[in-house]
């Protein structure tokens, strides 16, 4: 057993079997939600007809689009808007660190809504770089079991996004719903989440996650 680090008072431990455990709270991440499976998109222009998982300001603003895919690939570009052929026309495209490939194993275009993991329908978690870089096994795409210790509700999830270095405990909207953590209204990702240390996270680096019948790719960062 080895301590990987401590964030916000919570100790991250690598167990002897290579799995990683920690307790923390849970804030909510709407990133990756692009309406891929009929859920709400994470972000959309102000004149968009329909709801969004998060408020647009959390994606940034002109010249500083930190939270959506842009045409130039950096925050100074213009946000990519989904076309009539995409799952949620008019919405922006929000990314996750974990990305899907096409049938031939080649990266999907960055502007493709299907390249990313859908926060609205897929239980996933977000981890800080300390975990991704701190263990031998591949973390992004790996299996994770998330348990709400207040009600003992548990869900199989995938590690799909990267969080800030000094924050621990963040989950997708679908993950929150699966374990009985309150989401926000009208923006689900603005919910209060769960207090620390009520959520237990058990990661299995190197073991590809299988969630809702989908096997996720293991991705080195």
């Amino acid at each position, binding site marked *: 057993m080895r301590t990987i680090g401590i964030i916000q008072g919570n100790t991250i431990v690598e167990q002897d079997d290579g799995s990683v455990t920690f307790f923390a*709270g849970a*804030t909510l*991440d709407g*990133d990756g939600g692009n309406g891929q499976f009929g859920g709400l998109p994470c972000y959309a222009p102000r004149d968009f007809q329909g709801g969004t998982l*998060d*408020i647009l*300001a*959390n*994606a*940034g603003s002109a010249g*500083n689009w*930190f*939270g959506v895919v842009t045409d130039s*690939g*950096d*925050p100074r570009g213009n946000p990519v808007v989904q076309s009539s052929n995409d799952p949620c026309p008019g919405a922006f495209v929000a*990314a*996750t*660190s974990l*990305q899907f490939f096409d049938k031939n194993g080649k*990266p999907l275009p*960055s502007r493709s809504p299907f390249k990313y993991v859908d926060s609205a329908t897929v239980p996933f978690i*977000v981890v800080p*770089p300390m975990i991704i870089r701190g263990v031998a096994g591949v973390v992004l795409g790996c299996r994770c079991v998330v348990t709400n210790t207040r009600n003992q509700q548990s869900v199989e999830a995938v590690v799909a*996004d*990267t*969080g*800030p*270095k*000094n*924050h621990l405990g*963040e989950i997708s909207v679908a993950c929150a719903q699966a374990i009985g953590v*309150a989401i*926000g*209204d009208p923006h689900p*990702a*603005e*919910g*209060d*989440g*769960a*207090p620390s240390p009520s959520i237990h996270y058990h990661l299995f680096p190197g073991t590809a996650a299988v969630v809702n019948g989908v096997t996720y790719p293991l991705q080195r*960062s």
Partner: protein
Amino acid sequence: MTFPPGRLRDASKRITSAAIASHTWSFGLLFGILSISAFAADQPSYTPPPVACEVRYYFREYLRGAKVGAKSYSAPSYEREALPPSQVAISDGSVSRIVDGRAAHLPYRFVVKVTRNSDADRGTLKVNVLDASGKPLRGFPQVITNPLTKTGGSSSKNYSIPVTKALTKKIEKTLLAKDQSLTYVALIIRMRSDVP
């Protein structure tokens, strides 16, 4: 067994003093309890439940070393600062819960007031944000029908707080860590019982 008269007097004094102190303390405690009960009894039945307010500083972090084509900013997160607890104020039959306070990293004063006039009255929520000179920020005050009526996290209200570029830089420097960029600031208002 006999004791000198002087020692007996001292012992008697100590016992008397202890008894008086004990009675005084008990009386004080009883008075305090009765006062609180009387105060609670004085509050109308339609007194709004306690509210809690906090300021959230949402940010994303630049992910150093991200590969070309990979996501280069983190998922969003936030730092929080709680405003003072709400106080009850009764005036002309209406009763209010008021939060009045400041956040450490903003030059603003927040005044949040939930007011009800009767059991049948859902009430109003008035939110004002004032600058250092006491003038309301643009878009404030805002008054709406009180949304804080249900427990369970289903009735919170969020207000976006405007920040200038200079203030953004200051918050990034004084509150956030290296490589973290402020995306926006929000005032969160909810029932105290819903605070996680």
